[in-house]
């Protein structure tokens, strides 16, 4: 997946231009945690994906062949264009994203800095969780309904090519149901007599994550310090 020769040259040309500098400035402004090498590398990748355009459109992700088999591919691609993740609004999808937005999304996978205070770490954790929450909450109404959860489960289950669709559909619902109930229990949601638990709010969602070391999970090695060595 290296950068093709021509685009590399183009990038080198570009890298001396003002465009590159503004990109970097912006990149640093928004994501001060990325270092030079990372930004450079990400920019290469961005240009490869976008085909040397300043923005990426969802179709551009079709070029990532490895992504093809990912069962939640569409969700991931959508996450890149989700206004909520980009901090551009409360709902809806962006048509295209620039390099800065690209960095914003990638920065969700940054490792936690060790010098963070406890509050900062918690804030950071919630940010990461929000990203995942948005991936589940498709319609952006702030809750994960059973339907939404069920679709997630279906997607996950369909990762196995041998599993029949019919079976997946039939058990996805019951799994989602159970998960929902579990979330209700974990979050200490008061059990109402007449009204079953409807949907997972973000607060409840955070609570279901208790016991999982999120910092271990939601980070990509590439964004670690040793990226410079790559």
């Amino acid at each position, binding site marked *: *997946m290296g950068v093709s020769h021509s685009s590399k040259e183009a990038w080198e040309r570009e890298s001396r231009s003002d465009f590159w500098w503004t990109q970097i400035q912006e990149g640093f402004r928004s994501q001060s945690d990325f270092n030079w090498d990372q930004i450079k590398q990400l920019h290469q990748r961005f240009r490869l994906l976008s085909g040397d355009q300043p923005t990426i459109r969802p179709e551009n*992700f079709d070029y*990532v062949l*490895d992504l093809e088999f*990912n*069962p*939640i*591919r569409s969700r*991931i691609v959508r996450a890149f264009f989700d206004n909520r993740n980009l901090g551009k609004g409360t709902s809806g999808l962006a048509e295209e994203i620039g390099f800065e937005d690209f960095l914003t999304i*990638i920065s969700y*996978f940054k490792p936690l800095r*060790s010098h963070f205070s406890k509050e900062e770490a918690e804030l950071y954790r919630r940010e990461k969780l929000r990203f*995942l929450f948005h*991936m589940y909450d498709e319609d952006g109404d702030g809750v994960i*309904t*059973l339907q939404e959860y*069920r679709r*997630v*489960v279906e997607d*996950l289950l369909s*990762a*196995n090519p*041998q*599993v029949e669709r*019919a*079976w997946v*559909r*039939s*058990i996805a*619902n*019951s*799994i989602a*149901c*159970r*998960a*929902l*109930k*579990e*979330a209700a*229990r*974990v979050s200490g949601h008061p*059990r*109402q*007599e*007449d009204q*079953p638990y*409807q949907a997972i709010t973000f607060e409840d969602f955070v609570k*279901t994550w208790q*016991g*999982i*070391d999120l910092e*271990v*999970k*939601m*980070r*990509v*090695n*590439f964004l670690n*310090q*040793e990226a410079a060595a790559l």
Partner: protein
Amino acid sequence: MLRAALLLLWLPLAGAGATDKPTQEPVSLGEPPPGLALFRWQWHEVEAPYLVALWILVASLAKIVFHLSRKVTSLVPESCLLILLGLVLGGIVLAVAKKAEYQLEPGTFFLFLLPPIVLDSGYFMPSRLFFDNLGAILTYAVVGTLWNAFTTGVALWGLQQAGFVGPRVQAGLLDFLLFGSLISAVDPVAVLAVFEEVHVNETLFIIVFGESLLNDAVTVVLYKVCNSFVEMGSANVQATDYLKGVASLFVVSLGGAAVGLVFAFLLALTTRFTKRVRIIEPLLVFLLAYAAYLTAEMASLSAILAVTMCGLGCKKYVEANISHKSRTAVKYTMKTLASCAETVIFMLLGISAVDSSKWAWDSGLVLGTLFFILFFRALGVVLQTWVLNQFRLVPLDKIDQVVMSYGGLRGAVAFALVILLDRTKVPAKDYFVATTIVVVFFTVIVQGLTIKPLVKWLRVKRSDHHKPTLNQELHEHTFDHILAAVEDVVGHHGYHYWRDRWEQFDKKYLSQLLMRRSAYRIRDQIWDVYYRLNIRDAISFVDQGGHVLSSTGLSLPSMPSRNSVAETSVTNLLRESGSGACLDLQVIDTVRSGRDREDAVMHHLLCGGLYKPRRRYKASCGRHFISEDAQERQDKEVFQQNMKRRLESFKSTKHNICFTKSKPRPRKTGHKKKDGVANPEATNGKPPRDLGFQDTGAVILTVESEEEEESDSSETEKEDDEGIIFVARATSEVLQEGKVSGSLEVCPSPRIIPPSPTCAEKELPWKSGQGDLAVYVSSETTKIVPVDMQTGWNQSISSLESLASPPCTQPPTLTRLPPHPLGMEETQLPLDMSSDPRSSFAFPPSLAKAGRSRSESSADLPQQQELQPLMGHKDHTHLSPGTANSHWCIQFNRGGRL
């Protein structure tokens, strides 16, 4: 394996047998040969296995005694207690026999005692955690062990050069390196014994433990290389030998791992074909794993690595292939053997230490060794961690490093290796033995005793014993995919990328090759967790008496819904819930005579006399959506039950005479007649009868209609309800049957239901014993059915796994409707029910045909092959007659009534 267990102590005890013999022999030989002895005392024939058994018994009893006091075991690790016990026992033996008898023989240790422990740890290794930390584990195992061996060896040699070690210790640099190589390896047995009680966090545990397992290869190589160098004499060692030594490291480790993987492959492949001989499944696991060990040992590869890899590699596939019971058997046998071996090892270690004839003391050497192994271990850990932390996502902090350095326990492996030394080649062997014993005792007793307080004092992150929740499982899967995707997007082929690739490869090829078709189709981790959680809930539900709405009440309703899913995915059920019991007639549960009678009687009692617990359960659980009329309905139902019983007794007396007509008809006529009779019998005679069934339908309808008004999420509860009220499912099935049989010709599931009662009836006594069935199913049928159904069943069983998916996939769609279709169904259900309830219950033509075909012997086997779900049902009934029977009984009644 049993033989191995018996042989366990053969070798060490052989000596004891020899001493006992003289005293016993006169007794046995003193008998006059010609006469028929009433009583013969033949101790010498049984003594060896007898002593083995006795020793294990003593060890086990000691364990029990230790655990009588919680206080002691919470403070002192079991391994310490066992070693001390061994010391005491050794002392007693020494006092009685005047010489030390028992020894931890290296041969016994390596061939019989070690494999079960390693297999246990490899098989139950949390593989995900292991591979996540593989880099660190390998570093510590390879670099760390090399470092420890060399530094300790060289430092000891330096110590000797400096004159701190007595001149009696005749050893050169190579001897010290050899000693260093055997003393430096962290011992898996000791580590496991201590760390299992300490409960440090998972990462820390897996690193220390993984290191102790994987460093075996390094230890073996180092030991062998040094040993051969010593034997060759340092003068003869050439440069190529060093190169060979380095090369052999790779050969031994990779070769061992390869042997393990090959056997894991074989094992997985073998278990794929054991579906008719379930009983040997556990044995296969042990045999092949042991074969892996012996093969590696034979080729002088790393045997520990081989077994570890074998256990690690085969688990996923084996667990999917073997039956649920076999899985339990494997688990318990493995744990038993491992704990047995561990106990014996520590006890023998203690006993061996008593034999002072074999060891010679040198304070300088002992103290020096103790100091160096602790010092260099700590130093090595710090250095390596520093390097590793540059790359690790989660750096290991200082506390972790302290625990890791302190947790480097030495144990029986070192002892066995040092015993194996050749005294003629290594003149200082006795000193090394003494030092090794002291080091092992020190690490196991002193470090073992203090590590718990240390961990507490340092406030090491403990492992939180949270049960895995479904949400977390789902989230983690999502995460795996997200991370893989992000790595794809940023074009970085990191860990997640390769893991993702591997999983795809596994799903595409390996699983298909190594798992039963029925297994891999529905094999999914999310599903597994879901299934396990449901089972746990079910168990806790039963434990609570089955009627208390527990604090986990929210999750309870989903238990039956799992059932319904499981029923639909028959293959799963066959595999999961002890299918072997019912399907394989030769297997364990074949004996179903007297007990089953009892069951049958009990069943009748319960069925007739009791208000169905299921229903009550459902009513209480569903309270939050049908709160008001639950009690009311309950009462009604009790009433119906009573009425039904009366009617049934009446019917049976009256109708036994009339129902000996030709086969296909009886049902119809029976129904009519019954009604005819019922009407006069009681004023509302018909209602109770039909209500018994009809009303349940109505119940569900109310539930569903109520829920329809609620939003999507309430579909949850509805689904659950379907599961709980089996009747409900039955009705909807029948309804769909009516519909489906018209439209879909191939659809298997609907047709299954009616014939099934007869199938089950044949298998389960209480089915045939049931009142109304006895009435409606003529004697002719019962004669014919068993034979031909038997064949049909067998074929269906066999066809089950060979058949392509349809049978197992269709049911779910039909019985458990996904929400969308259900929406349609719901609207139609009430209509059907209200308009003509009876017609909906009548057998659709296809069903009647199916029923008829039964008498026409094997006329349509294909249909019978599709009886699969049935078997699923029957499985359930058999396993838990008390609960699941109600379901059946209802179906039967339905069949009878029609």
